[in-house]
Structures are given as C-alpha cells and as structure tokens.
C-alpha cells in the first residue's frame, strides 16, 4: 500500500450475530471482538462457522440491498461507524479471481473501483499504475484479464482493492482456488505488502501453515457461536491446535497421517498410445486457433496402483485425465483398454457407449456439482445401478452401503447442490463408485480430489482410495496436493510442455508440483 494516509481501521464487534435469510440457526452469535488499527488477524473456525459472513459484514456487503440477506444483531463498527461499502475504506479479496475481475483489460479493472468511488479521471490512472506496480503486475494496462494465470488474476484483484486505499483489508482464502505456483505468488505479494502497509488485516484461511508469517493474532470462532479463542498464534495453537485439527482445519503439526495398506499392483488396464491432444474449440470468430497441449503421450495405467498426474496448471493434466477416462477423443492416437477391460470392449475408450464406460471407468470431476444429474442424494446414487438394470433389493443395499461408507445417510433426501463442499466431494466419489459392477468401477479417474477439502474429508478420501487400490482398482488422479502424493501415490507422472514423463519415486516430494 505505501500510501501516506493509509492508517489502519479499528474494528469493533459486540454481541454481534448473523442469521442467513431462510435459515433457522445463526451462522454466528454473540461475537465480541476488537481489532486495533494495524493488527493482522487470522480468523479460524470449522467450515460453516460464518467466517466469510463476518468478512462480508465488515465490508458492508450484508443486508437488504446486497446479495447476502439475513438478520443482524448486536453491534459492528469500523472506525466507530456501521460498516458501509460506499466509502471505500475496506478492501475485500475473495477466493475465486474469476468471479472478482470485472473488466476485460487489466488497467480498466483496477480503475473500476475508483470510478465507483467517483475519483476524478486525472487521479484514476496514476493510482491504477501505482497499484499495479505495488503488486508487481508484469503486463501493461491494456493486457487482457482473460489471458492471465490464476495467480496473476488474483494479484490483479488485490491491485483493484489496493487502488481504493483500504484501511481495512479483508482476505477470504485468497489462495484457495490457485495452484501451488499461483498461491506462492499471492502469498509472497501479501508478505511484502504487509511489511509496508499500516492497514488492518483480517484473514480467513484453512491452510494455516501458509499464512502463519502474515499474522500476529489468531481468533477462533465457533459455528453458531462467538469467539472461543483469541491470542498470539503460538499460544492459540498450543491450546486449541488439536481441537481445530479435529474440526477440519489444517493446523501445522496436526496434519492427518493416514496409514494406507500397501499397493498390491497389477497388470495394465489402460494404455494411452501416441496421444496428441489440442485445446478445445474456442468460441467466437476471433478466437485463437487450437493449440496442441499434449504431444505424443504414451502411458499405461495399472490395476492396484495409484497413478498421479502432476504439473503446472494448463499443462494438460485434466485433458490427459479426461482422455484416460474415455470421456473425450484425442486429436491423434488412442486410449485403449488392456487385459480384462479389453474383454469388455476392444475398441478405444472414447468409442465406448456412455453406459458401458460408466460401468467400468468412474470419473470424479474437480467441481463435484458438474456430475450431479438428479435432485436428491439418494437418487444420485440409485441412478447408475438403476440404469444398469439391477434389482430393487440390490440397488437399495448398494446405495445404503455407499451412503453409510461416505457418511451421507442423514442427507439421503437433500438436494445434491445444497450440500457443503466436503459432502459434495464425498457424494461425487460415491456416484463414481455406484456405477461399477462390483461396488466400484475398474478404473477411477479423479481430478484434484482433495482440492479445498478440510482434514476430515481429506483423510476419509485417502482411506477410501487406498481401500480401492487394495481391491485392485486402478486409480488415476490429477493433483497438486503434496500430502496426497506423499501418502497415496505409486506412480507419478509429470505433465508439462506437452509431455507426460514418469518421475522417479525418490524425488517426488522435493520437486514443485
């Protein structure tokens, strides 16, 4: 920030509570908290504890004229006044940069907030350039925001907030949607900015280890309640670390330590032969022509083995995964079944009818919602066995078993889209398993299965996947998750520069993912 008048704001909450419209229970209640100017606070709590709501309330984004409606109680003051979004003293950076950029050109996007504040034109551009310089934005004012990587986009979002000269900076998991490279980019930037700035900071972040250096105070809130712990990071984690970890927070030194049974290994079930893939058809008459993302990839996927695809975003991990799962057709080359899978159908996977494919190859998408096709959790799990023509008794027993296994039984009649993030992930895995002939398909392809998950869902997933491996299923996953790579990976393939190259097991941890 490095702006002369950017003294930090004072935040004061007393008996504050919030109930979302249409909900019976409070998200937070009885919150008493004072944040002094210039303090850097990490706000923690189990998922669903209303941390984001608190940030939104501080930014003046809750209430009847905003998207977040509900009932507020108690007192909330920023610099002694009720929070208001009109004055521009508060900057908010949320998770997804895609949903925060407004304009098509970088400079215009940073200028957007200043235009809204009514800043004179002559003053806008110097402030825009300064904000861009502060975040180390490497491109010009007219650079297309669509052409940026995730980390660069988030930097631009931060520049947009900084240009408004906030005295209170609210960060809501600013690195959660980024790959490790992008997250590092943003973390470095925040560390640098906070050295120079006097702004007050309130940060929400599940991956505590990543932000420990940025904060000098930790506040823990309880779902439906108020502040249950408050103090210096070391003290709070010493006293509450274990219980936070049990609630799903990634606390340093308290990471889950699964103990999966060893991989049985097995014969190849899938083989990619000379696969060349291009970027999909782009929209618009002025779109860039298709680009080759994978050049001549040969790869086998074996039973009883976990094969992990790693590499930077945009290098073709997900593309390779969808090709291996038979969902799309490569530009050249083919993905063919081997061994017992070839007895089902000898043709390349991309030519299998969808119904047969689903029975033998299960896919879990990064956004769980993408694969839901019904309006009830139970129906979602009944869907595949029903189509496979199974008897009612067998369907019921299988669905019941899956719901039990993935802790979904109490949600049987809930709409899949209304589940929490962790529940959605569990359901999406369950749907992929539900289609297989013997309680799971032969091959399971997962795109970032642990992305954004809390420690509980993470540990459950690892355990489940390890069990499937023991049963001899072939598991393929695209992932950035180092802990997952360390705990549950037999073969690691690095996808970069159009190639897919196996990585020697020994150096798996060190290399960037």
């Amino acid at each position, binding site marked *: 920030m490095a702006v002369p008048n950017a003294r930090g704001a004072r935040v004061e909450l007393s008996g504050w509570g919030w109930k979302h*419209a*249409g909900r019976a229970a409070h998200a937070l209640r009885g919150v008493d908290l004072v944040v002094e100017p210039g303090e850097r606070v990490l706000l923690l709590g189990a998922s669903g504890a209303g941390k984001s709501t608190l940030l939104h309330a501080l930014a003046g984004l809750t209430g*009847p*004229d*905003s*998207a*977040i*409606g509900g009932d507020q109680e108690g007192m909330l003051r920023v610099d002694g006044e009720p929070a208001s979004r009109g004055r521009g003293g508060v900057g908010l950076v949320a998770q997804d940069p895609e949903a925060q950029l407004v304009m098509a050109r970088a400079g215009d996007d940073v200028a957007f907030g200043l235009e809204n504040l009514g800043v004179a034109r002559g003053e806008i551009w110097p402030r825009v350039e300064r904000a861009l310089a502060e975040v180390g934005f490497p491109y010009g004012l007219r650079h297309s925001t669509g052409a940026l990587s995730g980390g660069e986009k988030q930097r631009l979002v931060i520049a947009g907030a900084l240009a408004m000269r906030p005295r209170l900076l609210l960060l809501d998991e600013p690195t959660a949607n980024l790959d490790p490279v992008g997250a590092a980019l943003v973390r470095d930037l925040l560390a640098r900015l906070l050295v120079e700035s006097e702004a007050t900071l309130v940060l929400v972040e599940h991956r505590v280890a990543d932000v420990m250096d940025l904060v000098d105070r930790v506040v823990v809130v309880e779902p439906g309640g108020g502040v249950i712990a408050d103090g210096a990071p070391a003290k709070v984690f010493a006293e509450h670390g274990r219980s936070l970890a049990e609630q799903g927070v990634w606390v340093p030194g308290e990471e889950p330590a699964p103990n999966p049974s060893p991989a049985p290994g097995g014969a190849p079930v899938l083989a990619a032969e000379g696969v060349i893939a291009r970027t999909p058809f782009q*929209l*618009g*008459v*002025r779109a860039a022509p298709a680009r080759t993302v994978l050049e001549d990839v040969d790869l086998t996927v074996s039973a009883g083995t976990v094969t992990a695809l790693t590499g930077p975003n945009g290098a073709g991990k997900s593309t390779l995964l969808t090709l291996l799962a038979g969902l799309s057709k490569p530009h050249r080359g083919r993905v063919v079944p081997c061994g017992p899978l070839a007895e089902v159908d000898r043709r390349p996977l991309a030519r299998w009818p969808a119904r047969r494919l689903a029975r033998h190859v299960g896919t879990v998408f990064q956004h769980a919602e993408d694969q839901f096709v019904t*309006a009830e959790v139970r129906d979602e799990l009944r869907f595949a066995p029903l189509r496979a023509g199974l008897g009612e008794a067998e369907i019921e027993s299988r669905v019941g078993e899956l719901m039990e296994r993935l802790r979904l039984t109490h949600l049987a009649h809930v*709409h899949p*889209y*209304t589940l929490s993030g962790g529940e959605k992930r569990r359901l999406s895995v369950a749907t992929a398993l539900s289609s297989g002939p013997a309680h799971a398909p032969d091959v399971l392809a997962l795109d970032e299965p642990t992305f954004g998950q809390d420690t509980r869902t993470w540990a459950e997933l690892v355990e489940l996947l390890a069990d499937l491996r023991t049963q001899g299923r072939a598991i393929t996953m695209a992932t950035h998750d180092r802990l997952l790579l360390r705990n549950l990976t037999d073969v690691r393939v690095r996808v970069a520069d159009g190639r897919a190259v196996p990585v020697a097991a020994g150096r798996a941890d060190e290399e960037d993912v």
Partner: protein
Amino acid sequence: MGIDTDLGRTGGLRGFLGRIKDGILAEFKAWRTVDIVVAAVIGAAVGVVFWLWGVVWTITGPLFVLFPPAQAILYGVWLLPGVLGGLIIRRSGAAVLTSITAASVSALLGSQWGITVVLEGAMQGLLPELVFLLFLYRRWGMGVAALAGAAAAISPAIRDAVVYYATWPLSHQLVYGVLVLISSALIAGVGGRLLTTALARSGALAPFPSAKG
C-alpha cells in the same frame, strides 16, 4: 423483495397506471447489483449455449429450407432468456436485460446478424416483460410463464414473416407464426418455469424472491 408490498393493493386501472409510473422508476433504482449481474450472467450463459448451438443451426439450417415448419417448432429455445430472466430475478426490466445480454454474446462472438441481434434481443425481452408487468410482477406461475413465452415469440414471428419469408402467402406466414408462438409458449414458457423451479430447489436462487419456487 419490495416488489409485492403495498403497490398491488391499489386495484383498477388507476392503480395499474400509477404503478407503471412510479413503480418502474423506483424499481430501477432499487435493483441490487446481484439482480443486475445475475440477470446478465444468465443471459451470457444461455447466449454461449446458443452460439454453440447456432453453429449447428447454421449447418443444419439449409435442411429446414425444404420444410420450414420444422424450424418453427424448435424456435422456442431461442426465446428462453427473457422469460427465464424475468422468472428468476423478478424485477421489472430483468427479462429485457437477460435477453439483451444473451443477444450481445452472439454479436460479440460473431453472428451473421452482427449488432442487429441486440435489437432483436431487446424485443424478445420486452414482450415477456410486458406480460409480467400485466400481472404487476406478482404472478410467476406456469400460465404467466407460458403467456410470456408466447409473447416473446411475437417479435421473431413478425420479423421472420417480414424479413425472411417476405414473398410467402399470408396463410403460410400465419401458420409459421402460430407454430413459433406455440413452440415458444412450451419451450421458453413452460421450460423456463420448470427450469426456475429446479434452480430454486438447488438452492442457487437464495438471493432472489424466486428461491421459494
């Protein structure tokens, strides 16, 4: 949200006209950002699907030359955005905004009609908007939706008769127009209403009055 408060109580023509005068102006100011942006994003999403579909339509279009009514029967899909925007956002002007955005996507990505589609989109949003207005923005049931769908089709039915099929006999043009209207009432109207219900059940409509179904 503020739409169906005391304005509806004053009945009769005078109440109706008064509602138009004061209501609409106040209503435009009362739009929250989320109303504007979601209306526009719905339009953009449908517009993207349309554009992809339009590629197919352009290729298969010549087939319809031999039997134009077939094209009329599918026409309703194109009229979905206005009806859907109105049903979801439930504010005066939402149908127009959604429809214009959907059309802008085509203009931006490239269509043989270019910028003219935006005018088209405005008309296709304005007509269902008038139907919603007729019910004072208080009724959003299946009947109103179907009526809004049919109303949206008036614009392309006339446009096609005048611009595409200008030399046809009136009887042909009428049959074509009626088919387009029916198609739109069913696909855009009934389809739009069913989509809205499904969306409400999914919890996605939480910020809007349509969340209740």
